[in-house]
């Protein structure tokens, strides 16, 4: 069973968000990494790039699959987890910690309310599995 920390926000595209003031840290969920399998490469944007909410900002690759990662909130990239270049396995081993992907400056704080909470996200995973 996937781990879903209570203090985080989630999306239906399986990203998590940790909001801290005007900044948010983004990664993919424990459930998502389990589905992907061993992550071999993470493609991330450059600092300074701006993305609309729900638009793709990068991708995660396993040996035989590529999944895009979508922006949970509109914002500008302030920091990128460069350590994933050499250690993409951190997305598997510590998705909510060392496996974080980008930090963004939130443009529209109102969007935060649109995120799923941990219970809603767990329900959503169950629904998806049932389909």
């Amino acid at each position, binding site marked *: 069973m996937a781990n879903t920390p209570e203090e985080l926000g989630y999306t239906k595209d399986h990203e998590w968000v940790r909001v801290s003031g005007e900044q948010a840290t983004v990664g993919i969920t424990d459930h998502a990494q389990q589905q992907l399998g061993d992550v*071999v*490469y993470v493609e991330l944007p450059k600092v300074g790039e701006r993305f609309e909410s729900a638009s793709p900002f990068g991708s995660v690759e396993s040996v*035989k699959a590529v999944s895009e990662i979508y922006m949970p909130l509109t914002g500008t990239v302030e920091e990128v987890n460069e350590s994933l270049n050499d250690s993409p*396995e951190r997305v598997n081993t510590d998705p909510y910690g060392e496996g974080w992907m980008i930090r963004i400056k939130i443009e529209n704080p109102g969007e935060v309310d649109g995120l799923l909470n941990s219970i809603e996200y767990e329900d959503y995973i169950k629904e998806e599995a049932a389909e």
Partner: protein
Amino acid sequence: MDNSRIKKATTHVAQNEELLFERSRAGRIGYSVPPLDVPEQAIAGLIDPALLREDDLDGMPELSEVDVVRHFTRLSTWNYCIDHGLYPLGSCTMKYNPRINELVARIEGFARLHPLTPAPLAQGALAVIHSLEESLAKITGLAAVTTQPAAGAQGELTGIMMIRARLAERGNPRKKVLIPDSAHGTNPASAVICGYTVESVPSNAEGLTDLDALRRLMNEDVAALMLTNPNTLGKFEQKIEEVCRIVHEGGGFVYMDGANMNALCGVARPADFGIDVMHLNLHKTFSTPHGGGGPGAGPVAVTSELEPYLPYPRVVRMGDGLTLDFDRPKSIGRVRAYFGNFGVLVRALAYILTHGDSGLRQATETAVLNANYIAHHLSETYDIPYPGRVMHEVIFSDKKQLKHGVRNADISKRLIDYGFYPPTMSFPLIVQGAIMVEPTETENREELDLFIDAMRSIDQEAAENPEILKHAPYTTKVGRLDEVAAARKPVLRWKGEGGSAGKRADSTSSSA
């Protein structure tokens, strides 16, 4: 482990062999060049020394002829090939590669012919191209053929380029290409290089194109539908006439991926059911060797409407002979230098002539029989997601074996121990755990029975001792390789003893 049920294969000693660079010893010579017969001058006097290399080709191997022959012979023994037996890769049409085709392609008059030889001195080669183009036109029923594209994927590109050129001339090149969700990945990739976006057409419960969805998706933005027929589920598009009508009435073209032509050759012609343009894979239907990944050839056949757009030059009749026509104002241009993979064309023509009308038909009939034979005799053991008669290939899934925690990959790896190359796995994408089997016509009944036995035996193993399957194969030179580590830290060339990565021009001499 009990291997008593393995009948086709046994284990034997394989030779180890290091990389060429590890085998290299300074001072060994494998070549023979006559002495220079013109007065020698200092190279530095002929070419500015700043333009000359200074590394003395450090790192390139130094080996004797015997070393080279042993090296590649040993490497070859680690491969499976069609001459070992059934190679049931679905949609790949791994059939016997006739030796006579190899012989005729090596005749000096072909093998030593320079591509810029003036046409009057290359009449035999032009006749091969012309005759093959005519034969393929008869097989497809279409008006004209180009043999320039170097492979199936390049044929797709060429075909879609012609459609675009035609539509542009009509006034609007349009924006999209429709592709069924069961299609090969090359289809969308090729359409994109032609500047189109791609929209997926869903399959219906029978695995065929969903006509309602097609009607919904078809509009004035759609340039073409790219269709594989029979599709990658081994099913013939029974409503093909209606499919073509919908696309044509919407002002688009129907492109057929001819990857599965081994199900139709001599039995049905795509032009008759409304196809406008299609490619053929000479390395599939027409038996030219796959060569461990190439070369192939992907001729493209078109209707007379699209004929003016074919790549130049065209081989055309002039008087008693043949010549090259470059004056093709509407042509999409050139997709490959010279005349494509000419040596492959010679082999394909030899195949077609050897078979003749009756042989081509018989080959197709037997290929379809063999596929249905496997489907029938494994239908109790393996799930068939789209049941019923198939054409030249059959798709199973691992649904029944999954109950024991056994996946299609495990089944395929265990098949190796049984002496077979695994089928195509995890394709088409619309089938979970797909196992796609195409036997072709060139297998005898014993080989098919051995395969059926092996698949049944593996199913038994899945129930009795699934762990065996999860670590298979056991009989190959290497076991399952760690592809995750290989992709995380790619090592794509030899970087010397100890693998020390240097930037450019590594010192890799093993003589030091």
